[in-house]
């Protein structure tokens, strides 16, 4: 009786209050959603639509495009290369970035040290291409090498390597035989060189958030730097790391510019995005191009799903 009355009472109230509670978040999301829907969702839907249409988007042809792209060996190579990027690029960039963020955090000349890693990020792709042509430049044996890598290589008696063309190095043929072309590694190296700065800066921002007292507690508990890194910093930083990894994975998937400026996808370095670009602009086949884009969208889903669990986790530990 006494209990029931306020119960009913409160229920009637609950509704209207919930209503304004329900709209509030959307007010905050509104601007973002506006842009995203207009500039990203709409094109995505458009892409989805085109992926079921023929070359000049004049007629629906069902899943033909998908059948084609999965049949074509070009796509297979591209997917394989993307896989290579996914693993090497992500792991190296994140790992190095993390290590460097932690190390530089310990010294006074932090910003300078960071700048060294960051600069590649600031260089435009066009310029980066120029740089790395200097690095990888190849001239036949007996010529003076204008590329640093080959200059060093020949310096120690190796034969010069056309890094951006060669599929496999003569002397480590066995190791890298198969689809993993050496020139892909050469380009991945460029990618890592550019993007490690990204990982470093973001992770460094995350590091700054870690409470100094917790670190002190670990010191007092007798942990050395190494243990502190693995057992305190790493777990506490894991949300930020997840952000970086996710972003880099996505970069690896949609990766275009680095390949484009280095080899334009020639010599077996194609990735899905470059393939898509050519299908779209050189071959004028919007159907295939769109299908390839959709493949990217699908490929990202697992990564995204993994993130869900992460949020739930973060929710409860704050």
């Amino acid at each position, binding site marked *: 009786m006494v209990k029931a009355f306020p119960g009913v009472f409160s229920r009637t109230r609950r509704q209207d209050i919930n209503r304004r509670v329900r709209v509030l978040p959307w007010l905050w999301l509104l601007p973002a959603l506006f842009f995203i829907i207009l500039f990203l969702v709409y094109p995505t839907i458009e892409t989805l639509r085109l992926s079921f249409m023929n070359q000049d988007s004049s007629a629906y042809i069902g899943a033909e495009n998908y059948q084609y792209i999965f049949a074509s060996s070009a796509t297979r190579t591209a997917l394989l290369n993307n896989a290579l990027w996914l693993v090497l690029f992500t792991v190296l960039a994140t790992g190095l970035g993390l290590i460097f963020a932690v190390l530089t955090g310990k010294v006074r000349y932090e910003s300078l040290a960071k700048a060294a890693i960051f600069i590649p990020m600031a260089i435009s792709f066009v310029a980066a291409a120029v740089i790395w042509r200097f690095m990888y430049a*190849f*001239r*036949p044996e007996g010529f003076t090498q204008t590329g640093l890598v080959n200059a060093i290589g020949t310096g120690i008696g190796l034969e010069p390597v*056309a890094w*951006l063309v060669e599929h496999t190095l003569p002397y480590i043929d066995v190791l890298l035989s198969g689809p993993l072309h050496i020139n892909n590694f050469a380009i991945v190296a460029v990618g890592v060189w550019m993007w490690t700065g990204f990982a470093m800066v973001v992770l460094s921002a995350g590091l700054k958030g870690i409470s100094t007292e917790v670190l002190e507690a670990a010191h007092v508990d007798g942990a050395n730097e190494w243990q502190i890194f693995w057992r305190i910093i790493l777990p506490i930083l894991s949300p930020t790391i997840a952000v970086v990894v996710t972003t880099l994975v996505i970069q690896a998937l949609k990766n275009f510019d680095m390949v*484009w*400026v280095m080899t*334009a996808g*020639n*010599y077996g370095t194609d990735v899905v995005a470059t393939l898509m670009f050519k299908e779209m602009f050189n071959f004028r086949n919007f159907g295939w191009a769109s299908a390839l884009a959709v493949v990217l969208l699908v490929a990202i889903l697992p990564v995204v799903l993994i993130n869900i669990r992460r949020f739930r986790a973060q929710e409860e530990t704050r």
Partner: protein
Amino acid sequence: QAGTTGEKIGTVNVLGVWGGEELANFQAMVAPWEQQTGGAMGFSGTRDLIAILTTRIQAGNPPDVAILPNPGQMIELAGDKKLVALNTFLDMNKVKQEYAQGWIDLGTVDSKLYGIFMKADSKGTVWYNPKVFQENGWTVPATWDEMISLSDTIVSSGKMAPWSVAIESGEASGWPATDWIGEILLHEFGGKVYDDWVSHSIPWTDSRIKASWEKFGQIVLTQGYVPGGAIAALATNFVDGSYLPFEDPPKAAMYYLGAFTQGFIADQFPELKAGEDYSFFPFPAIDPAYAGGVTGGANVVVIFKDNVTTRSFVEYLASPAAQQIWVTRGGFTAVNKNVSLDAYPNPLARKAAEQLTSATIFRFDADDNMPSAVQKAFWEGALAYLQNPSQLDSILANIEATAKNAYK
């Protein structure tokens, strides 16, 4: 519809591939028009022309005027009804008398003129160093066989490699190789076959086409012909490749590439004198029947928006006066017949121009004249061929596949 005369001349936005000196020269070329008409030109240059142009057209936002690097795209765009026919306002009689019929035909799609050609280039030029040839008593070959035997002599001389081949060109890698092949095919099988090939009347798998590829392969793949062999050819940028015959000591004796190569050499070796330290000889005859054939490339001006500004702009560009401006500044071969040969800055440039005008058989550079899809496939095919020559048949089959659905 067509701009009424009352309209005032305004700004014309031009999309093209030019940059650096080219752009400067072009602006110089346009300057008088701007002064006379009070109009203005805004030029956006990009080497991603296809991407940008396609995007803008698809989005219904094309530029006023575009200067395409080849007629292939012009044909496609005309087919898609994206272009404005020039014969609607140009004085066609004037055009006919100033332009060789061949060029007019190239710019015409189902009997409407869509493109005016300018800044042409002969592609029948093999570059070499006359001094070096003299010293070694080598003589300029007149036929393919002479050229091969000369090559062998040079190899055995051990002084240098006979050939420099360099086909790296970023996203366009491979086109120098396709120039080789086109040139060979024209000289071996003549204009008819060439035209059938370009218009895809004969399949890519045709034995004659294959033969041309293999002749090109003979140059690149023969042991000792090209320093570093095929890999070097693939890895070397086509500009850098042109330096080898002129370095000191020279690394190679000959380099085949279009007339514009003169610019590269001049930039890299300003101290060398055109015609003395470096020069070119016409691509040698293979089948005497077709001797004197030349392929060439040119940029083509097309209009997307029809108004007084674009009209007067294109009229101007087509005029000999306009083209002469760039000619004198160098690096430009006029297509307009009324530009006098004396305007060319040096004998070599003049020689190149003559080669075009006096050609017995002139054909437009093959790959540039094909649908962009086929062109791309051709380029990539050339790369693939040098990577593993044994695959030639399947490579040709691939291109054929692409061609099948590109030509409609």
